[in-house]
């Protein structure tokens, strides 16, 4: 194992190389672009054997991913924001086709107004496509999640595509030390993909044809059943990863300092680091606070979340996105999952379009939550503008 200081995007490229992806169709968009540039370098230097398809749009990128994955090739792409939205019809298609495609989403705001900075509106708007959706806090986690993503996606119980998120610039262009595992060790964790092609001239089959309403729903139900299977497969992959590499991420969510906590803040992505700091200083002052880091947004870890929240009185949810007319996107899911418990859920919308979520902001969120133990707040959802 070697440690190197790398940006999040470089790390993704290393993850893809270590995972031995074979086909990489992609299209440039800030802040994703340097991922595929790095992959192009690897290929140009003979360090990676893969076909980088320089397609003419994100739509074609996902189209080509579907074609390649159907043939059994290990397939990867990466995008952000407008590019991900442009793919949207085909993200549904990839999941409905049960293809283990892995995609890195470098989170960026949706326009207008035009903005290239960190914001999770892009990935959270893909919520209902049938993709697994994972979030990363650090560049090390980006690398490890990338490798895990292929394994989870190709698991026979799952066979659904996986997207994993890293916050634009905050991770993608920020350098951190990252431990790179040896190729041989990754090969042990993630064996060569051996899916036979679904399209084969010796066994002609027709794929994605036209079922009547009496047949259609079964296929959709199978997606949900596979999501259930993913609830087992994600933690299992993470445990196995930890056994081999010494690093793990607690599966689908990480409870942080919840012992004796009355109040906690749940969030996803790079801001978790800031929340950890604030929890630590508040704990030092005797406040009973903690954090829940959401690692898997889809499948949503409802059961695990309820278990983590059992002792809590108030849970705040910080969203870097909004479902306009409702509130935070993760907030909505958390509220639904906690409905059987007697925990008040407060929503905070913060950090859109790359705005800093400062220690002071997090501090204020905790204060709101602590006050809500005694006093019902006027609003359940608050914008940190």
């Amino acid at each position: 194992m070697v440690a190197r200081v790398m940006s999040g995007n470089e790390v993704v490229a290393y993850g893809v190389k270590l995972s031995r992806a074979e086909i990489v169709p992609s299209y440039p968009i800030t802040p994703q672009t340097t991922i595929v540039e790095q992959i192009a370098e690897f290929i140009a230097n003979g360090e990676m054997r893969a076909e980088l398809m320089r397609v003419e749009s994100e739509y074609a990128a996902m189209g080509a991913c579907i074609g390649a994955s159907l043939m059994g090739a290990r397939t990867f792409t990466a995008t952000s924001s407008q590019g991900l939205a442009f793919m949207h019809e085909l993200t549904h298609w990839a999941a409905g086709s049960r293809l283990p495609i892995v995609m890195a989403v470098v989170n960026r705001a949706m326009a207008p107004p035009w903005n290239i900075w960190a914001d999770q509106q892009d990935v959270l708007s893909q919520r209902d496509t049938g993709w697994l959706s994972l979030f990363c806090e650090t560049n090390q986690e980006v690398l490890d999640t990338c490798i895990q993503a292929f394994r989870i996606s190709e698991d026979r119980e799952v066979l659904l595509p996986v997207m994993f998120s890293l916050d634009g610039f905050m991770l993608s262009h920020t350098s951190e030390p990252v431990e790179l595992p040896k190729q041989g060790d990754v090969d042990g964790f993630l064996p060569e993909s051996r899916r036979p092609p679904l399209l084969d001239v010796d066994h002609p089959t027709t794929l994605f044809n036209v079922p009547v309403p009496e047949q259609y729903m079964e296929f959709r139900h199978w997606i949900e059943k596979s999501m259930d299977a993913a609830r087992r497969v994600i933690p299992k992959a993470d445990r196995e990863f930890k056994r081999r590499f010494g690093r793990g991420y607690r599966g689908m969510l990480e409870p942080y300092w919840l012992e004796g906590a009355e109040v906690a803040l749940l969030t996803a992505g790079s801001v978790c680091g800031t929340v950890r700091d604030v929890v630590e200083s508040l704990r030092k002052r005797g406040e009973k606070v903690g954090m829940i880091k959401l690692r898997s947004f889809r499948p949503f870890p409802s059961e695990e979340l309820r278990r983590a929240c059992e002792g809590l009185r108030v849970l705040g949810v910080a969203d870097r996105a909004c479902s306009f007319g409702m509130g935070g996107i993760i907030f909505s899911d958390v509220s639904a999952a906690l409905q059987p418990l007697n925990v008040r859920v407060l929503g905070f919308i913060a950090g859109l379009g790359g705005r800093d979520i400062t220690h002071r902001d997090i501090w204020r969120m905790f204060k709101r939550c602590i006050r809500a133990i005694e006093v019902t707040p006027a609003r359940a959802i608050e914008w940190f503008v």
Partner: protein
Amino acid sequence: MREELVEEELFAPGHRACAGCGATLAVRLALKALGKNVIVANATGCVEVISTPYPETAWRVPWIHAAFENAAAVASGVEAALKSLGRRGVKVVAIAGDGGTADIGLQALSGAVERGHDFIYICYDNEAYMNTGIQRSSATPFGAWTTTTPVGRVKRGKDRPKKDVPAIIAAHGAPYVATASVAYPIDLIKKLRKAAATEGPTYIHIHCPCPPGWRFDSDKMIEVARLAVLSGAWILYEIKNGRLNVTIKPPKRRPVSDYLKMQGRFKHLTDAEIAEIQRTVDERCRHLGVG
């Protein structure tokens, strides 16, 4: 029997195309030309819908439905994977209608051709969005009635000419581009065989009359297709490495009105409008060297 007329049927009877469907005949003939070693990526449209009611299929070759605008992109992914996995002897074929080709899928087609994938793209051109009920596409010819270019007091069918997709693809430098017609099966089969034997992106654009959409009786499907060629309204040619060669030259061109008058979609046209169409047909025929 001519060697082009292969017995084997790779498109099975009992599909649910309308009686006398030109597009379906194009597919049947194309598969005769190409044989078994193909993988088909098919765009949304009539051909897809009429041939694959789950869990049945009319296709005796591997086939995938690839979304409406996406046949070329999926085909390019399949082709890249075939190459990367070291599988040889299999040709990838994208099939789409005129809407899936000239309109919503043009970008994906352009991209895949420019990247030089080794595949055949077949456009079956029934000159409108038939699957959704006869709406105009950019390949609908000038003057034609469709449900979105209706004939009323102030509007008289489509007011723009047909988009010339084969020329667009030829301009990409594709090594083989050809037009074909279901009324000329030997010509069609020969061209598909040439495409199959060519390495790189090739494009075949097949004129396919649609009885309900063009408003004529189903028994006249081949007659209509043939008259399009005999009048010069549809010209059969191939462009091989940039050189154009007309493959079927009508001995003496028939007036375009013979073609138009067979079809209800043109029945509102006045003599002056027909004369205008005749002028553009003449000009194009001169341009391409058809008498």
